[in-house]
């Protein structure tokens, strides 16, 4: 199919790929390994020759790249673009690089939007890459600085851009940080949800909304950079 695979074997087998233009919320509790999940999704796309735009609101852009380096994962740097919303707020005078463009702050949605658009244009027009994964890590941080209506308007525009570009968008949301109404409001913009849950010391993942019925819950473990799905319950 002319779509995408998360690179998470059992989940991919169950949902049989994700349609180009889809926007997906990644929802899970704190400390459940969501960053590793999102980094795996990015890495699996990069391995297939796709591009990735990562909006980071929690750590500097350099740290995002270092995660791959630290875990000995080779990534094609010309396929990756990071919108760093953190470094400038720390008061560190750091210039943009080829891979990292820095927004003023997580409040600066205009600047964030411009930089996402520039990377999308660069990948499509100049580098001729037809598949891109946009990852926003995280919407929860954005919601700490801006109200739900403001973030909704921003997402309304950029989920549309993802559809137009035939990309996929993954948007990380911390479960338990927002009220149900806020989550329900945001869900209107998404085609599906990757849900993560924790039961005692065990973690589980499933996909909702990408097939006729939700996928089973798969237990997973994280070993270094690897996300290992154990089985459906």
């Amino acid at each position, binding site marked *: 199919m002319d779509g995408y695979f998360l690179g998470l074997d059992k989940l991919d087998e169950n949902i049989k790929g994700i349609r180009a233009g889809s926007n997906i919320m990644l929802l899970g509790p704190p400390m459940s390994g969501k960053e590793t999940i999102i980094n795996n999704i990015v890495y699996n796309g990069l391995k297939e020759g796709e591009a990735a735009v990562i909006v980071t609101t929690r750590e500097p852009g350099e740290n995002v790249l270092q995660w791959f380096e630290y875990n000995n994962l080779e990534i094609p740097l010309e396929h990756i673009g990071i919108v760093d919303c953190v470094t*400038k707020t720390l008061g560190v005078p750091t210039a943009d690089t080829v891979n990292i463009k820095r927004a003023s702050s997580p409040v600066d949605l*205009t600047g964030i939007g411009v930089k996402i*658009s520039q990377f*999308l*244009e660069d990948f499509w027009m100049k580098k001729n890459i037809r598949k891109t994964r946009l990852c926003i890590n995280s919407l929860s941080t954005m919601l700490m*600085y801006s109200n739900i209506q403001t973030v909704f308007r921003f997402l309304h525009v*950029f989920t549309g851009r993802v559809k137009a570009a035939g990309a996929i968008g993954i948007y990380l949301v911390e479960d338990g940080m927002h009220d149900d109404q806020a989550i329900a409001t945001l869900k209107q913009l998404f085609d599906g949800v990757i849900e993560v849950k924790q039961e005692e010391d065990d973690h589980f993942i499933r996909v909702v909304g990408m097939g006729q019925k939700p996928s089973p819950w798969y237990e997973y473990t994280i070993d270094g950079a690897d996300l290992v799905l154990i089985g459906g319950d």
Partner: protein
Amino acid sequence: MVETGIPRLDEFLGDGIPAGKSMVYFNHPGVEGDVFGMQTLHHNLSKDISCVFITSSSNPTLTKDQFTEFGWSIQKFEDKLTIVDAYSSLVGDLSNEKYVVSDPENIENMNEIIIQVMKDVPKKSVIMVGSLSTIMDLCGEEKTLEAIKLWNKMAILYDHVIIYNFTAWPYSESTIKVIKDEIFNSVISVGGIAERVIFGQYFGVLKADWADHKAQSMLFRVLRPGGIKIYIPKILVTGPFDAGKSTFVHSLSTRAISVDRLGTTIALDHGHIDHKGFSADIFGTPGQERFDPIIKMISGEAMGIFLIVDSTAPKDFVRAKQMLEITKGYGLPYVIIANKQDIPGAMSVDNIRSQFNIPEDVPIIPAIATEKKGVFEAFELLVEKITGGT
């Protein structure tokens, strides 16, 4: 009149913005519209005009740093620049600015500080609201629209010009309508040409109640350093064999490359020029008849044409006119370059005009491409014809 400092925009506005008027840069999301406001502010500071910048989406230090990305040092104008800090309090930072909005989510507090600064600064200042959309996001649409009315009245009272950067997120239809049609004296649309992605940016005047403005859009690029430059994606350079087309392309361009063999162009010349606020890609065609099919391919979507002729070779003028036909150049703005004026026997411009039998309004520029003489004059003239300048 306060100038915007954006190439061509002041001409569209009838030489700039009169005192007491308000203007909004109505920026579509994802397009580099904020640079318009920054360029306008820097332009006026450099003309020794007192300016105010209201920052609501980044702290004052970062705001100043952003100007340096474009090669604009505003530090040297600090005595003319007043910053209103409507950001630091939002993230719990202390501010060193004199004017601080302590509660940016409270429009009353915002009003109080903005009105105070408009009273305090010299009359005929330029007031720049860095991100109207952020204020609207924090304070609500209706309350912000009411506040804008108040700020615009203050501008009239103190002869200031007030300019807003606004990102047109999907606010309510009524809010967008008020912004586009009712509340500002002038609206400049800054948009993107999008298909799968945004691959081009343009601006145009939607409204200017003091001027008989031209309903025309300009493509632009943002250069770092440099700021907003009008962008012309394709200017064609054509003309007979050995007229000096490649030399012309190389003389004019900031950077250029040719595909040639044995000293003559067999595919194309390509160059890029940044000159006086304009940025253009230039494509030179081969001149030999056997390459005519290539010329047709290269000519598509050109916005203007340089026709290069060798002033010492009138026998080639018929071929030159033929090439203009092949490139469909007659329907486009074009300028004739009378090249090789340094060679004995070169014909004068008047003689060339009579031999060519072309209308008086088609410019013929005497040039010596090898010495860069006449090439920039020709470029400026063609750009004026393409962009509809005066």
